[in-house]
């Protein structure tokens, strides 16, 4: 049936992987595995072949899947997952990491053709979510998840669905406030034109009409859209701090009162359009500042990493229990690839636990019966049974989350530049205002009041309040393009302020699990067997890697003598072959000229004869070794949960020995950062796993490095795609540039204020001048910040 010659490697019609071994062919189409073929069959049976029309090979590889979904039948778990449920209908939103193209949208919105029990489904592409409404009677939650899984869209289920939470928190009425302010601003501008252009004598009745209409528009603008500034100013005054909100609120209040008095007493035109424009632009600035990459989650804790439910073994039954309800003393079963949810004692089974989540060490560790296994490890063998010894919230790993680093508010960590300036600004503003009042008061009381209010109006720091958000959001956009996603605009300033960089190793600067072992020298098959058997006895990560590389020894290899000296090597005898393995110091004579190499070396002596060495190279991320240039300006530290077998390799980047710290527990990392901060250093932490979560939170800027930004990454200030790690120096420089742009825009803003003040202190500020000056300064600031930021990005080659 196949028309393709066996020599050509074809790409799977479903997922695009190479079809290697067996051919799965149907309808003249090639599939790499049975899973992919199954999905195709299901889709074509239901007439959903359009899936393949919109994109080439849109599917996910389905080669290995072993889903345990029984927990989705447990009512207490269902309750937490669904959004709404009654007797007929359930609504649920799933996060599906695989959503990546238009085909995905199309297929996921056609679910009812696969199962009519599903009424409605809508995809949110950017958030990679699908919202599903289904009939309770005909299908259950487990069925829905299974259906999604059969077509290759396995949802990632977590009880802490942060994406949902973020969506809720965004639902304030900022957009509505902007709409109201913009609406009024537009109308007021139109109605103010006749006033500025002048009325003829017999049109004065229009003047009243327009004036009063304008005043009506000030009401919603001041008391709805701008009310937040009044409240903010009130709270800052109560707390006896001066922020930029105070002069803003003062300006708004003066504009409002003076406009009402002038128009009501028919003494002037008021400053209604300045008032509306001011609030409108301020809210726009707030909106821009708020712009975040909401499809990424920056606030994750251990609950997103741990399983949703745990299988608890009771006397004669097994049931699924939500993670939070897990109690000390319960017996639990953990299957292959599942994560151990709480500190527990191993009771039964062959435990081979991958602790890369916790320590960064990626080689699985064997555990013996009766040993305590810490939470966060991933079981790599068959099912094991454990007895819980500590509640989830107090286990070794999750204790971190009780640290104060997690409870403190993230946003007031550093005083931003504009906060610092606005203090002085407010003081100077008040002095100028009172001064001009005092100057005119003895001679001309009317003029004195006019100049006092005019100063407060014209100096209202609109441009000042806008320059930071607009610069930062332009910077945010540029970072985003370079796969560096920041939580919010304030993080740019945090990054600009740092002087110390702390790196985690595995997963951050090296690729997790990516190490290659190479044997330099020749070994016979028996010798290899013997070496492998010896290494199998050792839990040292290098031994484990060598063991993996050589393959497991044949059964009749017996290790007769075994002596391991930790940190140095192994002397052993297997099948009559005496073997010495380890560091150059241990294996060779102390002063031998050990071959200089970048990787870690394990030398081998067999029967007293030097036979060569194993090189073990970790795969570092691209550009990692360029980081050494950063040493000129920053202090670099390495914090690794790993053993120190890469020390030599990394010293070219981190320099002296004190900068590298190995075998650090998550708590150690947090403490280390805290120690640096107490010395007054501003620390940026780059880490990847759950084990870095505490340090990431504690650091002044926590950056989660990840290969796939849509996977779960620990809560942090920023998420960096691993491919862009080499751009880190440019990022750091650029964040400083952004700060310079802010300084520049502040200068411009002050210039405008000076021009305006020169009108104001003399008491000659007319509404027209105010109405022109305010928007012009705003537009200048916004265009200056975006142009300057883009130029800076070009200079740093980020654009």
């Amino acid at each position, binding site marked *: 049936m196949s028309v393709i010659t066996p020599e050509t490697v074809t790409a799977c019609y479903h997922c695009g992987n190479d079809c290697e071994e067996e051919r799965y062919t149907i309808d003249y189409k090639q599939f790499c595995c049975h899973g992919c073929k199954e999905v195709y069959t299901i889709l074509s049976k239901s007439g959903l072949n359009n899936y393949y029309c919109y994109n080439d090979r849109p599917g996910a590889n389905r080669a290995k899947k072993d889903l345990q979904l029984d927990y989705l039948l447990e009512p207490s778990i269902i309750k937490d997952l669904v959004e709404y449920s009654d007797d007929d209908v359930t609504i649920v939103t799933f996060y599906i990491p695989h959503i990546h193209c*238009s085909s995905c*949208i199309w297929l996921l919105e056609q679910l009812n053709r696969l199962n009519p029990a599903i009424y409605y489904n809508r995809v*949110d*592409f950017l*958030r990679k979510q699908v919202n599903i409404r289904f009939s309770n009677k005909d299908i259950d939650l487990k069925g829905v998840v299974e259906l999604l899984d059969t077509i290759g869209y396995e949802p990632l289920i977590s009880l802490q669905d942060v994406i949902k939470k973020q969506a809720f928190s965004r639902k304030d009425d900022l957009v*509505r406030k902007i*709409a109201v302010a913009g609406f009024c601003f537009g*109308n007021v501008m139109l109605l103010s034109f006749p006033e500025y252009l002048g009325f003829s004598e017999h*049109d004065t009745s229009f003047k009243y009409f327009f004036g009063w209409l304008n005043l009506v528009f000030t009401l919603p603008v001041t008391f709805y859209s701008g009310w937040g500034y009044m409240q903010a100013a009130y709270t800052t005054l109560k707390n006896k701090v001066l922020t930029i909100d105070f002069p803003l609120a003062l300006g708004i209040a003066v504009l409002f009162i003076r406009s009402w008095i002038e128009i009501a007493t028919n003494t002037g035109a008021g400053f209604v359009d300045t008032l509306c424009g001011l609030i409108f632009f301020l809210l726009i600035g707030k909106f821009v500042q708020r712009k975040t990459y909401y499809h990424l989650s920056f606030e994750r804790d251990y609950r997103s990493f741990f399983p949703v439910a745990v299988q608890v073994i009771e006397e004669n039954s097994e049931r699924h229990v939500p993670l939070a309800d897990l109690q000390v003393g319960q017996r639990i079963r953990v299957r292959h690839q599942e994560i151990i949810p709480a500190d527990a004692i191993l009771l039964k089974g062959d435990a081979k636990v991958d602790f890369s989540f916790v320590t960064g060490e990626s080689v699985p560790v064997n555990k013996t019966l009766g040993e305590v296994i810490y939470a966060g490890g991933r079981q790599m063998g068959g099912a094991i049974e454990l007895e819980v010894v500590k509640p989830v919230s107090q286990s070794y790993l999750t204790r971190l989350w009780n640290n104060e680093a997690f409870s403190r508010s993230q946003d007031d960590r550093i005083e931003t530049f504009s906060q610092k300036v606005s203090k002085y600004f407010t003081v100077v503003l008040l002095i100028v205002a009172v001064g001009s009042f005092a100057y005119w008061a003895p001679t001309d009381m009317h003029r004195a009041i006019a100049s006092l209010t005019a100063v407060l109006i014209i100096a209202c720091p609109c441009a000042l309040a806008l320059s930071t958000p607009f610069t930062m959001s332009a910077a945010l956009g540029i970072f985003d393009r370079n796969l560096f996603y920041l939580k919010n605009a304030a993080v740019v300033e945090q990054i600009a302020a740092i002087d110390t960089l702390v790196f985690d190793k595995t997963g951050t600067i090296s690729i997790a699990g990516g190490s290659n072992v190479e044997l330099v020298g020749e070994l016979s098959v028996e010798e290899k067997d013997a070496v492998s058997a010896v290494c199998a006895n050792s839990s040292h990560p290098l031994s484990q890697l060598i063991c993996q590389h050589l393959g497991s020894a044949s059964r009749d290899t017996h290790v007769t003598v075994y002596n391991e000296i930790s940190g140095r090597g192994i002397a052993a005898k297997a099948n009559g072959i005496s073997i010495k393995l380890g560091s150059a110091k241990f294996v060779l004579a102390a002063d031998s000229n050990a071959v200089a190499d970048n990787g870690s070396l394990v030398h081998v002596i067999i029967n007293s004869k030097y036979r060569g060495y194993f090189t073990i190279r970790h795969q570092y991320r691209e550009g990692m070794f360029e980081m050494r240039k950063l040493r000129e300006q920053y202090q670099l530290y390495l914090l690794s949960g790993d053993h120190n077998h890469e020390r030599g390799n990394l010293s070219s980047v981190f320099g002296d020995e004190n900068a590298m710290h190995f075998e650090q527990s998550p708590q150690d990392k947090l403490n280390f950062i805290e120690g640096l901060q107490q010395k007054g250093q501003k620390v940026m932490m780059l880490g990847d796993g759950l084990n870095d979560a505490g340090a990431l939170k504690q650091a002044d800027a926590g950056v989660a490095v990840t290969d796939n930004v849509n996977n779960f990454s620990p809560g942090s200030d920023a998420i960096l795609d691993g491919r862009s790690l080499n751009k880190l120096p440019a990022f750091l420089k650029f964040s400083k540039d952004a700060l310079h742009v802010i300084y520049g825009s502040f200068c411009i803003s002050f210039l405008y204020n000076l021009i305006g003040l020169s009108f104001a202190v003399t008491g000659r500020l007319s509404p027209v001048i105010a109405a022109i000056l305010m928007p012009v300064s705003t537009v200048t600031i916004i265009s200056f910040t975006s142009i300057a930021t883009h130029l800076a990005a070009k200079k740093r080659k980020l654009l």
Partner: protein
Amino acid sequence: MSIIYFLIGCSVLLALVFLGAFFWAQKNGQHDDMYTPSVRILLDEQPLDETEK
């Protein structure tokens, strides 16, 4: 010239209707997902042809 009172009244009323429409759209979540609809519109609803196959 007093027609201006009427005209301005009309224009403000009309503008209020648009503002109301915007509020309604906002409340209905029409601005929640600004991206997916732009893709969705490109997906043709092709007639089911599996019966002929």
